[in-house]
C-alpha cells in the first residue's frame, strides 16, 4: 500500500526533523498522524540548529551543526539519513588581511533550499550575520559578497553590543517561488532585507516595524526580526514575528502593518516562530511568549497557547485544547514551529524543555507526541 503511494508520488507518512542542542532526531508518523516514533539520535552531542529535507528531490538532507568544542559545519545525506557526509567546504568568511579583524562563523544557523528551478542550490544564514550559497547540494559553500562584504553590513547589523544574548543571526531566508533572483532575509539584529538580483544588492524593508530598543522610531534598519515567512501561495504576502510585534506586508507595498495589535492585550504579540498556511495566505499561526519586564520568553502566565488568524491578522483565536492549562513555562524557538502540507494542515512545535506537540486539525486540538528530548531548536515537517 505504502509502496504504491510512494510510486504515484503521493505522500506516505509525515516525518519531523527535530534539531536539538544534543543532536538530530527524526519523528516518524503514521499516515493518520496519530502514532509517532522517535529515532535514535543522529550526531549525538552536536548542536543541530536546523535540518531540512530538499523538497526538490525529497532525498537530500542538509543539517547545520556544531559541537561544544568544535567549529561549525554542514552534514549532508543523499539517502534520507542512512549515511552522512560532511560538507567539503562549510560556510566560512574570507580570511582578513594581515592586521585586520575578520569575521568568524560561530554557527550555521538557518538553511533554505533554493528555487525549484535551481536544483542543488541552497542558502545558509550564520551567526554572526552572514549569507552563504551552495550550488552543489550543500557540499561547498560560498559567501554572498553582496551582503557579507557590503560596505553597509556593519551599519545594518550593528556591533557585538547589539547582538542578542545567544549571538546575532541571519535567518529566515525566503526565495520567491516566482523568481529565483528575488530573496528576502531576516536578521536579529538588522531587520528585513530584500534583493531582486540574487543577492548582489540589498535594500532594507523595515517601514512600520517598531524597534523600541533604537532611538529613531523610523530607523531604516537594525530591527530584530525573529521569523519571516513568505506565503507559498501568494508570494506578495509576507508575515513576520518580530521582537516588537507581529507584522504583515502586502507587496508591492513597503510598510508593514502590526497585525499583532489585534492579539488579546494580556497575551501580547511577542514570540519567536511564524507559521503560514500552505494554501491560504490569510491564515497564520504564532506561539506568543512573555515579552514584558525582563523578557522571560516563556508561555504567557505559564499557560501555553498557539494563536491563529484566518483573516490576515484582523482577528486571532486561541488554540490550546490539549495543552496544559497552567504551570507550563515553555519557550518555542524561531525554527521550532512549522506546518505540514496536508489537508487539514498539521501543526507542530518543539519546546526548549524537549517536548514536541502536534495538531492534526490546524491547531484545534493538540497532543504531545514526544518528550524527554534535549532542548529543541528546530522542527521541520516533511513527507517520507
Amino acid at each position, binding site marked *: 500500500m505504502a509502496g504504491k503511494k510512494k510510486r504515484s508520488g503521493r505522500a506516505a507518512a509525515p516525518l519531523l526533523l527535530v534539531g536539538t542542542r544534543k543532536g538530530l532526531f527524526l519523528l516518524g508518523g503514521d499516515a493518520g498522524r496519530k502514532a509517532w516514533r522517535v529515532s535514535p539520535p543522529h550526531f549525538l552531542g552536536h548542536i543541530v540548529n536546523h535540518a531540512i529535507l530538499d523538497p526538490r528531490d525529497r532525498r537530500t538532507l542538509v543539517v547545520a551543526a556544531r*559541537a561544544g568544542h568544535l567549529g561549525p559545519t554542514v552534514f549532508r545525506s543523499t539517502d534520507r539519513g542512512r549515511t552522512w557526509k560532511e560538507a567539503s567546504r562549510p560556510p566560512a568568511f574570507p580570511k582578513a588581511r594581515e592586521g585586520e579583524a575578520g569575521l*568568524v562563523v560561530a554557527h550555521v544557523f538557518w538553511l533554505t533550499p533554493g528555487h525549484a528551478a535551481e536544483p542543488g542550490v541552497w542558502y545558509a544564514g550564520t551567526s554572526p550575520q552572514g549569507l552563504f550559497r551552495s550550488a552543489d547540494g550543500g557540499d561547498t559553500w560560498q559567501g554572498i559578497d553582496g551582503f557579507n562584504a557590503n560596505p553597509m553590513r556593519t551599519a545594518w547589523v550593528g556591533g557585538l553590543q547589539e547582538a542578542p544574548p545567544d549571538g546575532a543571526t541571519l535567518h529566515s531566508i525566503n526565495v520567491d517561488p516566482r523568481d529565483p533572483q528575488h530573496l528576502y532575509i531576516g536578521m536579529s539584529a538588522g531587520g528585513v532585507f530584500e534583493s531582486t538580483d540574487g543577492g548582489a544588492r540589498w535594500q532594507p524593508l523595515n517601514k512600520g516595524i517598531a524597534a523600541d530598543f533604537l532611538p529613531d522610531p523610523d530607523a531604516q534598519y537594525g530591527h530584530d526580526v525573529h521569523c519571516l515567512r513568505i506565503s507559498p501561495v501568494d508570494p506578495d504576502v509576507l508575515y513576520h514575528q518580530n521582537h516588537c510585534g507581529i507584522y504583515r506586508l502586502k507587496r508591492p507595498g513597503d510598510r508593514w502593518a502590526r497585525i499583532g495589535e489585534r492579539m488579546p492585550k494580556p497575551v501580547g504579540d511577542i514570540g519567536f516562530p511564524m507559521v503560514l498556511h500552505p494554501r491560504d495566505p490569510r491564515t497564520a499561526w504564532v506561539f506568543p511568549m512573555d515579552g514584558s519586564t525582563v523578557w522571560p520568553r516563556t508561555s504567557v502566565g505559564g499557560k501555553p497557547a498557539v494563536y491563529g488568524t484566518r483573516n490576515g491578522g484582523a482577528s486571532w483565536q486561541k488554540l490550546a485544547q490539549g495543552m496544559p492549562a497552567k504551570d507550563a513555562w515553555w519557550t518555542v524557538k524561531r525554527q521550532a514551529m512549522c506546518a505540514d502540507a496536508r489537508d487539514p494542515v498539521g501543526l507542530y512545535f518543539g519546546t526548549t524543555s524537549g517536548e514536541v506537540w502536534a495538531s492534526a486539525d490546524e491547531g484545534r486540538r493538540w497532543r504531545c507526541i514526544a518528550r524527554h528530548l534535549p532542548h529543541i531548536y528546530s522542527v521541520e515537517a516533511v513527507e517520507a
Partner: protein
Amino acid sequence: MNNVLIPAPLRSYTGNRSQVAAVGATLAEILGDLDHRYPGIRFRMIDEQDAIRQHIKIFVNREQVRRLDAPVATTDEVIIITAISGG
C-alpha cells in the same frame, strides 16, 4: 613524521584512531597535512582567520602553542586537546 594525538571529539575523522602521523615544519603545515589525510578536521579546530578555536588547545611537547606558525621539529609530539566546556 610527527605523532599527533587526537581527542575523542575529532576521532570520527581519523577512523577512531587516537594517534596519527602528520608531516610539517610548523603547526600550520602539520594541520594542513592532517586535513589532507582527514578532510574537514582542520576547520573544526581552526577558524577561518587561522585562530585556534576557543575550546581547542594544542601542545607541542607539552608546551601550549597559540600560533600556527609555531615551529615543529620532526621528533616533536603534537597533542590536540578539547578543553572544558559547559553543558
